[in-house]
Each structure stands twice: as structure tokens, then as C-alpha cells.
């Protein structure tokens, strides 16, 4: 079942073409990794797909053009986890997670149904944030804050999860935690993930499919093994990627 489909996605800022006729699709259970060097257009693609940037082409979620979605319908279909969060006021962890249920009960008197309470409780438990529920987000570390927003998305329960470099500022422990949590979330039928990742090892370890980009254009797309070939990676990054990765790894195996 195709959950998300982008056809001829093109994003231009003035005369500059950031994303040039990129197409991809996500089936149930897919984890698509968007990889490529800086400026390849990865974040712009997720921004356009989540309706945060103007584009030409077509993006369909569950077969419907997302431009026709109402805001709350779109939130039920696509959930987005950004790389950074700057919360200015002392909201509690639970109140932020509860906002994830907004799409199910918008309006002044929403957010008080039993199923919302249950979804919030489950999301907090799943991310290990229950002990922090009453704590102000201003007192959290970067990893805890990222888990808070991950819990918000779990409460939102979208069909497709969009991650824009979700572990960019996190240490190894939190990187592993976040990816393991997403991996577990994906096991439920009817879900898919698309993520921008710089760490090719993480992309290879967790992704099922990949879209390799360079200067806004598709270099290669398909399953991880089809895309992560030395030829494609070397062409996109303009360096011998596999040799570099082996050199890095050898430091640890020798030790």
C-alpha cells in the first residue's frame, strides 16, 4: 500500500532550483533515507512534502493530493520531527505531548477525551518520558527534549513520519535511543518513515530504501543496497566514500 508519493517535486527560490524533478514513493513499512552532501536539497524536500515550502509537482498521501488536505487531516497523515526545538516558555513535557492530539480534537474545547489521555500516556511511556511528564521542558537536555517531541509525534499517530536530521545535535546514546524508538514505531502496520540523515552508517543500519541526491537531482534511488554502492556514493559526494568509511571503522577493529 503506497502511503506517500512525490512526483516531479521541484522547489525553486527565485531563479535558483533547489530540488529538481525528484520522485519517490513510500510503501507500508518503508524507511526511506534521504542522503547526499550539504546543499543536495534533502531538507527542502521534507519541508515541501510537509507543506512548509512552495513547490511544483505532486505530493500524495494515501492517494490524495496533500494540497487538498485540511491542516488537521494533513497532521493525521504526516508527522514531522525537526532537528532543533526552541521552546521559549516553561511548558511541561506532558502539555507538549498532549498538543500532538490537536488534530483529533481541534478547537477551544478539544483535548480532553479519554482516547487522547490514553495516547498521551502511551507516547510518554514508549519514549521513556513518563518520569519527566510534569517537568518544565526548559530543564531538559537536548536528548530529552528530542524524545519529548518524538512522544508528541507518537501521540499524533501519523501514517508517515518525516524526520529532518533528528539526531543531529545528539550524542551517541541519544542517537541510538531515537533510532531504536522510531524503528519500534515502524513495526506497527500501516506506517512508513522518511528521514534526512547525514550519517551513512545510521542510514544503512536502519533504512530500507534510500534516495541519493546531489545539487537537487536524484543520483540514485531504490533499496539501501541498490543505492549504497561505491559508484553512486562516490559520484554524489565526490570522494571515495567506502574507503573513508572503512578507514574510520578500522580504527575500532584494530583497537
Amino acid at each position, binding site marked *: 500500500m503506497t502511503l506517500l508519493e512525490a512526483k516531479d517535486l521541484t522547489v525553486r527560490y527565485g531563479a535558483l532550483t533547489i530540488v529538481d524533478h525528484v520522485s519517490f514513493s513510500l510503501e507500508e513499512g518503508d524507511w526511506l533515507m534521504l542522503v547526499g552532501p550539504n546543499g543536495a536539497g534533502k531538507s527542502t524536500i521534507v519541508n515541501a512534502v510537509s507543506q512548509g515550502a512552495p513547490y511544483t509537482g505532486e505530493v500524495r498521501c494515501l492517494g490524495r493530493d496533500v494540497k487538498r488536505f485540511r491542516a488537521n487531516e494533513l497532521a493525521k497523515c504526516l508527522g514531522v520531527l525537526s532537528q532543533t526545538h526552541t521552546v521559549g516558555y516553561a511548558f511541561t513535557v506532558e502539555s507538549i505531548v*498532549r498538543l500532538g492530539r*490537536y488534530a483529533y480534537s481541534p478547537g477551544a474545547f478539544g483535548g480532553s477525551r479519554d482516547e487522547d489521555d490514553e495516547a498521551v500516556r502511551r507516547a510518554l511511556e514508549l519514549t521513556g518520558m513518563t518520569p519527566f511528564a510534569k517537568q518544565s521542558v526548559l530543564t531538559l537536555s537536548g536528548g530529552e527534549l528530542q524524545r519529548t517531541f518524538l512522544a*508528541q509525534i507518537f501521540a499524533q499517530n501519523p501514517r508517515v513520519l518525516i524526520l529532518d536530521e533528528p539526531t543531529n545535535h545528539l550524542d551517541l546514546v541519544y542517537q541510538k535511543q531515537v533510532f531504536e524508538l522510531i524503528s519500534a514505531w515502524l513495526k506497527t502496520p500501516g506506517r512508513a518513515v522518511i528521514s534526512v540523515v547525514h550519517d551513512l552508517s545510521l542510514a544503512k543500519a536502519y533504512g530500507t530504501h534510500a534516495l541519493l541526491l546531489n545539487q537537487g537531482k536524484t543520483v540514485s534511488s531504490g533499496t539501501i543496497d541498490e543505492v549504497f554502492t561505491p559508484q553512486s556514493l562516490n559520484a554524489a559526494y565526490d570522494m571515495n566514500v567506502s574507503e573513508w568509511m572503512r578507514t574510520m571503522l578500522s580504527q575500532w577493529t584494530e583497537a
Partner: protein
Amino acid sequence: MPRNRIQKQGGADASPSTLSLAAKSGGYSAAQIALFSLAAVATLLFCVSAGSVGIPVSETFAVIWNAVFGLPQPDSMAVSIILSVRLPRVLCVALTGAALSLCGAAMQGLLRNPLADGSTLGVSSGASLGAVIAIAFGITIPNLPFAGTMVLAMGFAFLSLVIILSLAYKIDFSLSTNTIILIGVIYSMFVSSILSLVITFASDHLKSITFWTMGSLLGASYSNALVLLIALVVCGAVILRYARELNAFSIGEDNARHIGVPVRKVKFLLLVCASALIGVCVSIGGSIGFVGLVTPHMARMIVGPDHQRLLPASVFGGAVFLMLADLVARVILNPLELPIGVVTSLIGAVLFIVIFYRSRRVRA
């Protein structure tokens, strides 16, 4: 490390069973709203009673009670002082304080900027320009002497909003808050220079313009209070309706969009309502600074950042704060009366520094 200690405390009392509904987004109970209203009414009675001629609170209450229910009044000078001078003024002060504070709280949430209020957006400056033009060039509407100032102030407030949003949209189609704030600040500076120019050409009205720009509700009438009440009920209802959305905006505009808030529609509605409300307030009371900035901060320290609790608290807090500030303005240099804007700025600036210092210490 202090942060770790806080985490342990959080862990001790937040079991899944206690999670349930205590922190569920929600406003106040009817009893709590009644308590707030009672405090506001008590302050109103006190402020109407106090002044150059002291009147017992019980007598003030009796006079207002008789007036409301059409009962005969005692033959006393206090009746005319209360009903003709002080009550309309204090009512206008309370409604202006409530409105400015509500707008400040909404803008601080919407723009995710603790320094936001009507002046940040440039709407207050625009309204001031309209009112000053009306005073300087004697623009009035026949049979409605105050209407010229009011209509021009509201018109310029709306015009300012249209200019600011159009420029912001031209630069950044998503109407990002940073763009709006930046253009608002630039627009305010531009309008200030025009304001100075108008004042230069209208030296005959210099005293009244200067007094007005410092903020004053001297001579406020029941019709002014009625206009303020209608504006507060209509625009305030819209702002309160979007309390949950304001929570989402406070966390981040992108996050608000991702969880399903129609951000452009909500932002547009909130900005229009806040601007209209500020325009009405400025047209009646002039520029009264710091109410929209300080009161929401104080309310946030007491009730927290959830707008379903913060907005009503700001309404009542703003009303009480401005009534007390107006009382100080009336009595501190009796028989001389200070412009209320001077008092709010003096108190507000000091309070704001204290609040800012305390919040930094808490974070540290």
C-alpha cells in the same frame, strides 16, 4: 547538578496514574472565574471610592447599586462624583487594562517573543498617528466630538496591520513571526518620525497631543466604556477561542503547523483582533505602555504558560493593574494628575526588570 535534581523530583511524583487529567489543557472553573471577577469588582469599588474626595466604599457600592437597578439616590455630592466622573473613568481604565493585557499575552504567544505587545507590531504607533492627526488637524464627526480621534486611530491601526502583513507576505510568504516583528519595529520607527513631523506642524495643539501620547483616561465617558466593552467581548472571544493554538505557536510555528494548526488563518485572525482591540484602546486612552508587556509576564509566573489559563488571568490582571496605576496617577501628586501612561511606564519598567532578573535566576 541542579538539573538532575529537578529531574529526580519530577520522577518521584509523576507516575502514569497521576498523569491523567491534572495537566490536561483546560481553563478555570466557574468558581475561580467568579473569584477573579470579585477581586476585579472590589478593586473597581476601591478605585472609585479613593481620590481627592474620599468616599466610603459602602457608599460607593450603594450609589452604583441604586444606579444599576434604578433606585432613588441620596441627595449627596458623592453621587455625581461617582456616577459622572469616577465610575465611567475607572470602567474605561479596567476595560483598557484588560484589553491591552489580553493582546499582549496573545502576541507574546503568537510571536513566541516575551517582549511582544501592541507596540512591537507597530499597531499602537499606527493608531497613535491616526489619533494625533485627528487632534492636530481638528478632525471631528458632527455631534460625536470623540469619534474623529477614535475612527482615525482605528483606521490607522488597521492600515498599519495591512501594511505590515503585506510587506511581511511580500518578503516571506509563510508570514514568519520573525519577519513580522522586524517589519513591525521598522514600521514603528518610521511612524514615530511622521508623528514628530505632525507635532511640529501642529504646535497649537502641542499640550493636548503630548498629554494624549502619554496616555490619559481623563474625561472618559460611558459611551467610551461601551465601545471598549463591545471591542473586548468581540475580539476577546476570538482570542480566547484560539488559546490552544496559541500554546502551539508558543512552542514554535513549524511545530504548530505540523500538529495540524491552520497557522496562517489563526495568525491572521489573532493579529486582526489584537490590532482592532489595541486601536480602540489607543483611540480612547492614548498610548499606555507596559500594561501589555508586564501583566502577562506576571500572570505567566503565577498560572504558567498554558494560554487557556494565562489569557483569562491576563484579562483580570490587566484590569486590576491599570485601575491601581490610574489611582496612583490621580492621587500621588494631588491635586495635580499624572498621565496614566507615565505611571504604568514607571511601575512597569521596574517590575519588568524584577521579573526578567528573577526568570534568569530561575533558569540559571
